[in-house]
């Protein structure tokens, strides 16, 4: 069999007459970061939701650790170790770091029927985990709202890893961040991959993707324009492959012509 951790083969998804995705194929090994690039409307959101088990693909197969599987719900995907960190991060800014970290999966203690949320243990784990990625939460009961964007992103990723993710699907993790914060998050993503996770990084920012990715899949209007190893493609080529490239060239030509005609 293959040494791929997860394979998405020829995935297609239709909404009525609209072809949202057509024949998208992605394969990931352990420790690999695949960047999924695409402009707005390229089908990134549909693909994410298909990976996360929200949508069921109409065609194609999903193979996790050599076994063909079907995700009926987000929980199925999660149980197989495919964790999706959405753009909104699923964090509640009014709640504490600890309560967010364990939201929906609270550690419990006590006898049956009288089980209580083991907040001390949760505080300890949350502080420890955040400490490991260099975020010093002085007080794990502080509200997430007081954290910076990068810290929140790292919290969401660290939560996914803690709860047993093998494949991380990250939806635009750097889009809302400044340069420094983005680089911190990207560093953390590389570190996570080096510990044996497979990462699918979804972004429209080639400058963020290129330094960290091992391979790149470009999505345009629901179709994959192919997957390239890093050595086979340049940053400029990737840029022009995303929807903007061709159109910007055309625009440049048109503008030149306009200039020429107005100069005459």
């Amino acid at each position: 069999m293959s040494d791929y951790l997860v394979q998405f083969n020829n995935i297609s998804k239709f909404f009525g007459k609209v072809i949202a995705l057509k024949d998208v194929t992605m394969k990931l090994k352990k420790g690999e970061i695949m960047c999924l690039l695409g402009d707005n409307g390229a089908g990134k959101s549909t693909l994410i939701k298909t990976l996360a088990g929200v949508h069921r693909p109409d065609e194609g197969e999903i193979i996790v650790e050599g076994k063909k599987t079907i995700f009926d719900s987000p929980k199925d995907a999660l149980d197989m170790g495919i964790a999706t960190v959405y753009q909104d991060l699923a964090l509640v800014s009014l709640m504490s770091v600890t309560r967010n970290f364990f939201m929906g999966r609270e550690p419990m203690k006590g006898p049956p029927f009288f089980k209580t949320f083991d907040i001390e243990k949760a505080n300890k784990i949350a502080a420890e985990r955040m400490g490991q990625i260099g975020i010093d939460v002085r007080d794990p009961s502080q509200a997430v709202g007081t954290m910076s964007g990068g810290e929140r992103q790292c919290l969401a990723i660290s939560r996914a890893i803690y709860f047993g993710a093998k494949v991380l699907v990250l939806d635009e993790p750097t889009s809302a961040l400044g340069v420094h914060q983005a680089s911190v998050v990207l560093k953390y993503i590389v570190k996570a991959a080096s510990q044996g996770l497979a990462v699918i990084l979804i972004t429209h920012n080639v400058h963020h993707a290129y330094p960290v990715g091992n391979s790149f899949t470009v999505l345009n209007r629901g179709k994959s324009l192919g997957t390239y190893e890093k050595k086979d493609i340049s940053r400029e080529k990737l840029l022009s492959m995303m929807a903007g490239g061709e159109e910007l060239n055309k625009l440049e030509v048109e503008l030149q012509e306009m200039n020429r005609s107005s100069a005459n």
Partner: protein
Amino acid sequence: MSTKKSKSIETKTDFNQDERLKKVSKLRLLLNRPELGALGGAILVFIFFGIVAGDTGMFSAYGVLNFLDVSANLGIIAIAAAMLMIGGEFDLSIGSMIGFAGICIAIPAIYWGWPLWMSIIFAFSLAVLVGYFNGILVVRTGLPSFIVTLAMLFILRGATLALTRLITGRTQVPGLRVLIEDDPLAWIFATDTFKWVFTWLGSMNLIALRTDGTPLATGIPPSVIWFIGLAIITTWILMKTRYGNWIFASGGDKNGANNVGVPVGRVKISLFIGTAVAATIFATIQVLDAGSADTMRGTLKELEAIAAAVVGGCLLTGGYGSAIGAAFGALIFGTVSMGIFYTDVDTDWFKVFLGAMMLIAVIFNNYIRRKVTESK
């Protein structure tokens, strides 16, 4: 999912160089507690009446029990309203539910000859249904609970009035008092407790006595016991249980909560059931105390409950607040509404106070929320 599966990821990427951190003072931490405003308010209110009405009998055993009873009644529904508000929803049908529940106890007991305990169970069953209906409607349609429960406010009040007149030809159902004795269930809602303490205090001449030598204040009213019990249980739920965490999560960000596996719909429905049941507890205590049910009972109580919850630190947008804060909020309103009788102030001013209190609370809460969620 077990914690063993997870791998330890160790990177030292220092955020702190970038963050300009300030030391968080203990005072600031305390200010972050949602119930702090209400606690401070309650203390101020007691100081005020201590000065203004300290020698009037307001703080005699009888006077204290009097304003505690009023506070406790409001507190029972305010706590449930607060839980629901933390869960991100409103219930405007609480007041109508009180009237409805009262009639649901009185009519079967008086006109259909049911034993009182059966009528009480009947009323609570209907409350669960009403709460479930409110909840499922809000969760399924995604409509604002404000609108859905406003509709329920009219439906329940109208149905209460129409059905009562249809069955009894009147709008009041008296005659319940004789049924309370020997009923296996009613005593839970109708018994004064700790009577021996008051008898003893009376015998020591420490509290005011009637002319026949029995104390004026006979015992702790049932509302107070229910109120304290509910305040403790709900606070425990919010702080110490998984369900409590789900309530905060559902109100804070329902999509986010859903994405990490919190059953947001179930949580919200259960909270709607909670407010309807609390309204029924309120109604049962009042109906048994007065010995009669009135179709207009509970009018405007939903707004007082929400006001108390807001004064207690609940945000109108959900995800933040506390049950104990709502309890303090109710204590403030109950104390002032009774205390005002002991002062020279015209009681008409009570509503002005209530409104002003709520306004101050909202402004204060808004400020706190900004502080809490402020990004660095």
